[in-house]
């Protein structure tokens, strides 16, 4: 086993699959709640976490987790007021990305790695990275699984959930923490610019194939894992960048799933 984990390709596949399995259910919730832009915002701002972690010489994943958590909480709180929610998210997303890039330029040795942070560097995942990625992804998934029914209820309608004795605010908090964990886990796999794709594409691809929320969550996880393995294989054979190749594979699955869904409707 240890010998097997010594192979960078195996580590890459395991890291990608771990992220995909967590991103499936979380991505479904993000899509159902129309939070796609929130995922992007947290992911972009995570670059600032990378910069700070490198500057302070702490681990990148803990640094990203801390900043992602802060940004996610700020975004969850700071709605309403003068600006529409998507305007504020745009400010936070682009602002976080730009500030992160500027701060990174001050950190010696980080500039050369810029594309790794933006688009991921899954082939450079070390054994310790792999452990952290699975820990973060596993924690996020466990949180979602434990709170699944209440999350589903507050996703259907927050007022209805509250009137029935639920607590939509703490559901939102749970989702926010899970999102930050996933961003921290996925940053090294697909990079700040493509984390959102890992959330949205598999969930969107699963939609035409299913009739229940749970089936959509599991299908999204499965399709995400397929995209990771397919994308890695393609990157290996065609010598393309791994992160974008994974997302292209997910896009292909999305198109196929929609074609299948359309054919099924025509048959019926």
């Amino acid at each position, binding site marked *: 086993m240890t010998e097997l984990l010594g192979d960078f390709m195996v580590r890459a596949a395991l890291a990608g699959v771990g992220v995909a399995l967590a991103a499936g259910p979380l991505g479904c919730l993000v*899509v*159902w*709640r*129309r939070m796609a832009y929130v995922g992007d915002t947290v992911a972009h701002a995570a670059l600032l976490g990378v910069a700070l972690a490198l500057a302070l010489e702490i681990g990148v994943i803990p640094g990203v987790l801390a900043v992602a958590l802060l940004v996610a909480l700020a975004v969850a709180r700071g709605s*309403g*007021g003068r600006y529409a929610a998507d305007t504020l998210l745009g400010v936070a997303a682009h602002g976080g990305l730009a500030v992160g890039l500027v701060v990174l330029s001050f950190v010696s040795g980080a500039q050369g790695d810029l594309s790794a942070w933006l688009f991921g560097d899954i082939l450079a995942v070390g054994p310790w990275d792999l452990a952290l990625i699975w820990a973060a992804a596993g924690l996020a998934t466990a949180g979602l699984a434990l709170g699944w*029914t209440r999350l*589903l*209820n507050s*996703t*259907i*309608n*927050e*007022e*209805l959930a*509250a*009137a*029935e*004795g639920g607590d939509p605010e703490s559901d939102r908090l749970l989702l926010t923490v899970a999102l930050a964990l996933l961003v921290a886990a996925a940053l090294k796999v697909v990079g700040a610019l493509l984390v959102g794709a890992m959330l949205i594409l598999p*969930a*969107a691809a699963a*939609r035409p194939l*299913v*009739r*229940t*929320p749970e*089936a*959509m969550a599991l299908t999204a996880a499965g399709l995400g894992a397929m995209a990771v393995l397919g994308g890695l294989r393609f990157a290996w054979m065609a010598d393309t960048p791994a992160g974008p190749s994974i997302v292209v594979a997910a896009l292909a699955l999305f198109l196929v799933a929609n074609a299948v869904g359309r054919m099924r409707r025509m048959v019926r």
Partner: protein
Amino acid sequence: MSSNLIEARGLGVSDGRRRILYDVDMALRSGEIVTIVGPNGAGKTTLLRALVGALKPSEGEVWRRRRLRIGYTPQKLTIDRTLPLTVDRFVALGSGAGRAARRAALETVGIPELDGSQVTDLSGGELQRAALARALLREPDLLALDEPTEGLDQPGEAAFYRLIDRVRRQTGAAVCMISHDLHVVMGASDRVVCLNGHVCCEGAPLHVTGTPEYRALFGLGTQGALALYRHEHDHTHGHVHHQTHGAVGTEHHRGRDHGHALAGSGGAQP
């Protein structure tokens, strides 16, 4: 006092720019059917949300009986099209009710054939019935219904009120609903609360329709829709008390100056 399910004291809600509700004192008692009426923008939906706990009031407080079970149907239930959900599952998510009970509830609200349909394929009226089935399955102490007859035709509306009455008799649940249809409301309610930012008047339907506050809000007979927004200037607090004493003696009634949230007589709405 002990039969109260919910009590609001000095309740106020503002959205930062505008006070939607202010100085609302009201109680819901077990087993009664209360209807909230009022013009557009009077804060009816906001009041119902605050009462059931779906919204935090900015002033005052709302007391709810411990372990109060509420069955709530929002005015508009929009479920994102990307969420795959059958009607049966939607209904099940509100309680631990078993399959047979869920079938019976869908039967009761008149959509037994839709249990396997996706909620996103339902019409507004069908979705509202599904929400009612979900609320009924919770075996609630209180049914809180926000414009439950919206989108129903007249026979459907009459059937709906018969259903509500039957549910109340069978389960003893209190019902608090918002309605626009004044005529039907009058026949179906024990108590009417007339709202316009605050409680303008409340009491038995026949009593409330006799108050100047009610007439000011809903017009005097056939003056039409404009009358809804017309501001009556010719009543005073003294006048109100006089009317109250002259009306149904035992009925609880509070009168208050009203209507200042709206523009002056005949003026445009803000």
